[in-house]
């Protein structure tokens, strides 16, 4: 279960995952934390923009678009059994 921890940027569209941690020192992390993206929060990648970046994610009923470079600062544990 805990074997596969990937970056949020690598989570394919339509997949859900659970946040594990944020990269220390990345400027996006404090802002995501303020939005409630804490360890343990469930997050879904809704879609990727047509030009490949940014991605739109959904968590706690909020929809947010962020660049892959920022999404990469978040480690998530994908829900493999859906």
């Amino acid at each position, binding site marked *: 279960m805990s074997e596969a921890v990937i970056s949020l940027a690598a989570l394919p569209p339509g997949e859900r995952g659970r946040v594990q941690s*944020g990269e*220390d020192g990345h*400027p*996006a*992390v*404090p*802002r*995501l*934390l*303020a*939005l*409630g993206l*804490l*360890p343990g929060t469930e997050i879904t990648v809704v*879609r*990727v*923009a*047509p*030009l*490949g*970046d*940014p991605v*739109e994610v959904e968590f*706690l*009923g*909020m*929809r*947010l*678009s*962020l*660049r892959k*470079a*920022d999404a990469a600062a978040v480690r998530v544990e994908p829900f493999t059994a859906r």
Partner: protein
Amino acid sequence: MSRPDSRPLRIALVGNPNTGKTTLFNRLTGSRQKIGNYPGVTVEKKYGAWHPGGRAATLVDLPGAYSLAASSPDERVALDFLTGHLAGEARPDAVICVVDASNIVRNLFLASQVADLGLPLVIALNMSDAAEQTGIHIDAALLARHLGVPVVRTVATRGEGSGALEKAVLRAVDGRLLMAQVPWPEAVQRAVHYLADGLEKEGVAPLEPGELRRILFDQRSAVLERAGWPPEADPQPLLSAARDILSAAGLQPVPAEALLRYEHLGHVTADAVRFPEKRRRTRTERIDAVLTHRVWGLLIFALLMFLVFQSIYAWAGPVMELIEVTVAAVQERVAPWLAAWPAVQSLVVDGLVVGVGGVLVFLPQILVLFFFIALLEDTGYMARGAFLMDKMFGWCGLNGKSFVPMLSSYACAVPGILAARTIEDPRARLTTVLVSPLMSCSARLPVYTLMIGAFIEPSHGAVVAGAVLFAAHLLGLVVAVPVAWSLNRFVLRTRTQPFLLEMPPYRRPRLRDILWRLWERAREFLVRAGTVILAMTVIIWALVYFPRPPEVRERTVAALSALNDPSAVEHAVEAAYLEQSLLARAGRAVQPVFAPAGFDWKITVGVLASFPAREVIIATLGTIYGIGREVDAGSGDLRFALGRDLWTHGDRAGQPVFTVPVALAVMVFFALCLQCGATVAVMAKEANWGWAVFGFVYMTLLAWLGAVLTYQLGTRWLGG
């Protein structure tokens, strides 16, 4: 409670972006500040008079913020205002925290930070209608009991809850009602004490515990700067030591604040908020599945933009004709009355009516453009545009958040440049400020449609005309990409900053809001036509009309004495006067600079006169051609006059002045040039005069280069 009522209460509106603060502000104060369905509409604080329960109060609308960590200039406004560190600004007596009821926990995060600063608080549960529709139910009374402050259900768009809010605010002020504190662990308290001691040693004035927590938790809090930390001293050792106290107790410093606050808020809201059992697929999700679709998304975006420009043509046409006919009728009516005073007649007929009337003709087109921009803003499509386009912006070092300033600049660069305040990175913000004026603002529309209407539409039809208009609007954007890229590469070297943009739900635009904005815009335009443009018109007229030495007339009449046609002679006299007028002399002196772009002295003069405000070119050409017009042709239509103008001297003598390449070169010049005093001033305000001058110079050079290239390539390909 009795309290001296001499001083008006100061009440601040704070909250996350796009929660309806300004809508509420407008409701309570009767103001008309701008609202829109995307985060970051308000970027400056705004004041309004409010009378809760008959007491005098000043209500302050602040830019939205997710956190007091304040990462962009607009968010800092809120922080500075609340901590009272702005010069001449006392701290507010109470704060109305506007909370989006659909997303209450996340919204209360900011409320809890605000409460931490020791300010009495009222929670306005706004957008309650939308929340209830999705099945979210909030027990306001229970929540109020848990939080220790009033919680009022509001629907700002309909004014629901305003009365209850008045009472709640007075209760909060008089009772100094403070929101329940987060039970800070002992380690946080120790770290705060440690910080307080450290700051005291540096001679910083004592701070509130809430402010100390900001310094402790935020990476680089603005509070530290404002509180008088000596700029030469590095705060890092002190901050690290304080944060080590947290680490030692097992609290990671970065997520500590979020974890503690959200844990507390989770407890507080647990039994007061009921979420729907099963989440339904919302309307917004269904719309987004199409509008931000991989393939359809971009296609629809392009189509939408194209449609906007087609409709500017199609919808505005009939009204424009009506105005044109009216202007011509006024001209005809007025002329005979003033026949006794030729100079006055000329000033009124050729100067004022042609100049100001000629500009007024374009009002309908500008309103159509504004109507569409308002639709994009109010439905929520703006944020989708940013989502679709961010990659393109990112490539040249801009930010997806540059999209809003840049799109707003299509209406007018002044608010567009102000909107750049939502951009966190100072250098990305500066880049945005410098390229926003390249976006084709509505003041350029008259120039485009004059040229297109005179030289493209008659021969190529309305569809091509619409396409050219679209291309003219695209040009600035296309040029902005390499410009921004070079600025980043060679001048500013911006660091990419996080780009986080909340996608607002789609909302039905409110016709009243849109009409109000159109009216404001129309008024602004009319005022401009009645002041700047009127004044410029009079000056231009005088420069065209004078001097009038009698020899010119005598010489012309003598030369044409064989001709037995008084009206032709009269025309030749006017033309001769025009050729030796002050403006003609100045124009001919400068014309060589613009000769490579195919401009004659008249266009040159039009270009030069338009530096204070673009629309002046219409007045200038109108006046020149009005005074020099062919009497027998009798047409006041500028488009017609332009098409008939021939070169009198030089190697192109006898050929038309305006050809398709010349018309395109004029459009390109106006598209790229910064001919707007107001924009230069706002650039200076938002950056500094150095950058404003830089922006002016680079755009002028670019415009000249673009016009020359267009003319040279155009004559080669399309033929002169």
